[in-house]
C-alpha cells in the first residue's frame, strides 16, 4: 500500500499542515509527497532537478493540485501533465480555494479528474478528505504505477 503515493501540490504552509492533519485524522496511510510550487511539482513528476533519477513511470496514485501557486501555476502544471504521454493519465484532483467559473471550467477543459473547493469549515474539510481518500485511494483503479 505504501507505494501508493499522494502528491500534494500546495504552497501555503498552513494549508499543507491542515491537509496533512486531515489525512492523519482520516487515517490516510499513504506516503505524501509535498511539492511547494508548480515547478517543484513538475520536477517530481518528470524526475528533474532535485528529483533526478526518480522513475517517471511510477505515477502517484492521485495528485492534489492547488491552482494558485508560485512560479508555475496549477493550471499550467495540469496542462504539462496532460501534454506528456508519461503523465497524461495521472489522476489530478484540483483542491483549491476558489470556485470562480474561470478556474472550474478551465480545470475541466484541461482534463482535471475532479474539482474540490476547500471549505472554510474544517469539519467539512475532514469530510471532503474522507470522501477523497475513499474514492481516489480505495475505490478508484489508478492507471498504473502503483500495483504492477
Amino acid at each position: 500500500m505504501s507505494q501508493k503515493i499522494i502528491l500534494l501540490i500546495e504552497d501555503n504552509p498552513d494549508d499543507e499542515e491542515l491537509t496533512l492533519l486531515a489525512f492523519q485524522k482520516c487515517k490516510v496511510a499513504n506516503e505524501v509527497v509535498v511539492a511547494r510550487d508548480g515547478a517543484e511539482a513538475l520536477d517530481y513528476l518528470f524526475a528533474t532537478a532535485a528529483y533526478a533519477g526518480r522513475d517517471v513511470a511510477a505515477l502517484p496514485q492521485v495528485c492534489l493540485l492547488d491552482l494558485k501557486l508560485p512560479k508555475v501555476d496549477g493550471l499550467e502544471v495540469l496542462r504539462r501533465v496532460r501534454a506528456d504521454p508519461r503523465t497524461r493519465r495521472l489522476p489530478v484532483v484540483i483542491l483549491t480555494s476558489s470556485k470562480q467559473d474561470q478556474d472550474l471550467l478551465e480545470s475541466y477543459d484541461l482534463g482535471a479528474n475532479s474539482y474540490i473547493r476547500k471549505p472554510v469549515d474544517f469539519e467539512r474539510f475532514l469530510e471532503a478528505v474522507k470522501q477523497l481518500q475513499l474514492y481516489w485511494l480505495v475505490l478508484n483503479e489508478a492507471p498504473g504505477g502503483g500495483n504492477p
Partner: protein
Amino acid sequence: MRAFAASIVETVRHPLLVLDAELRVRAANKAFYAAFRVPDGQTDFALNGEGFDIPGLQDRLGQVADSGEAFEGFEVRHDFPGVGPKTLLLNARLVVSESDPSPMILLAIEDVTEKKEAEDGLRRLNDVLEDRMRERTAQLETANQEMEAFCYSVSHDLRAPLRSIDGFSRELLKSYADRLDDRGRHYLQRVRSNSQRIANLIDDLLQLSRLSQIEMKYETVDLTTLAASIVADLRQREPNRQVTVVIEPGLTARGDAGLLRVALENLLENAWKFTSKKPHATIEVGRAGHDGPSAFFIRDDGAGFDPAFAGKLFGAFQRLHHERDFPGTGIGLVTVQRVVHRHGGTIRAEGAVGNGAMFYFTLPHGDEP
C-alpha cells in the same frame, strides 16, 4: 435664342460663367458678381488672373476647350481676395452656338463652403466622440479586468487564512480540550463561527459582483420547476422542518436562467430561514395577477419585518434581524434586487413583525428576443 439662353443663365441661383477658348470671361450671371464681389457687368477678364488663379482649374478647362469633354463635380478650394476661402464644386461643358462658331465653355459654380465646413465640423465631432468612446471603453475594460483580478484574488487569498483560523481552532478544541476551560472553549467557538461568517460574506459578495458582470442570455424560464427544485434542496438540508410550500403551476418568465435561479434561491432561502421559528410554516410562490402577467410574489408566514424599515431591506449589509435570531450577511436581497433590475423589473416588500413577509417582483422583458 440668345436672349432665351441669357435669361436662363441670369435666372439660375448658382454663379455661372461663359468662357471663351482662351478662358476669358465673356458673360457672367448676377449670382457670380454677387458671390465673388466682381463689379457688376464686368466681363472680358481672364479667369487665370483677378484672383481666380485656381491651381488645376486652367488645365481642366483647357481640356474641355480642346477635347469637348465635360467635367462635373470638380472640387476646388481657393482663397478669393475680398471674399475669403471657398470650397467650390464646378461643372463645365463646351457649348457651341450656331450664330457664333467659336466654342464657349459654360462653367457652373456651386459654393459648398458652408456644407463642407458643417461636414468637417461633424466629422471632427465624430472623431472626438469616437476617441472619447474608445478611451471610455478602454477605461471600462481596465476597470472590469481589475475587478475580475480583485474577485479572483479575494476568492483565493482571502479564504485561505480563514481556513487556517477555523482549522487550527478546531484542532485546539478537539486535541487540547482538556487544557481549556469552558470560557476558553467558548472563545474558540466564537473564533470559528466568525471565520465561517466572513467566509459566507466573501461568497455572497463575490456572487453579487459576478451578477453584475455576466452577460445575460434571455430564454423562457420555468419558475415553477426552478422554485420546486430549490425547495427540494432546502428540505434535504433540513429534513425535520415542517413547511408547506405552495407553488403555482405554469409560472414562466423570460430572463436569464442562471440569474433567476440566484434570485429565487435567495428569496426562498429567506422565506425558509425566517419561518424557522414556526412549528409549521407556509411558503407560497405565485403570479401577482393585478400587477400584470410578469409580476410574481413569494410569501411566507414567518417573522416578517417592521414596515418602517422596509426601505432598508434592499440596502447592502442592512439587516432587520439580529444575527443570533436569524443569521445572514445582508447581501441576499441586494442580490435579488440586482437580478430583478438587470431584467428591467422592480421589487418591493410588504410585511409586519410576526406576520410574515411578501416580496413582489416583475420581470417585464417577456417579449425580449
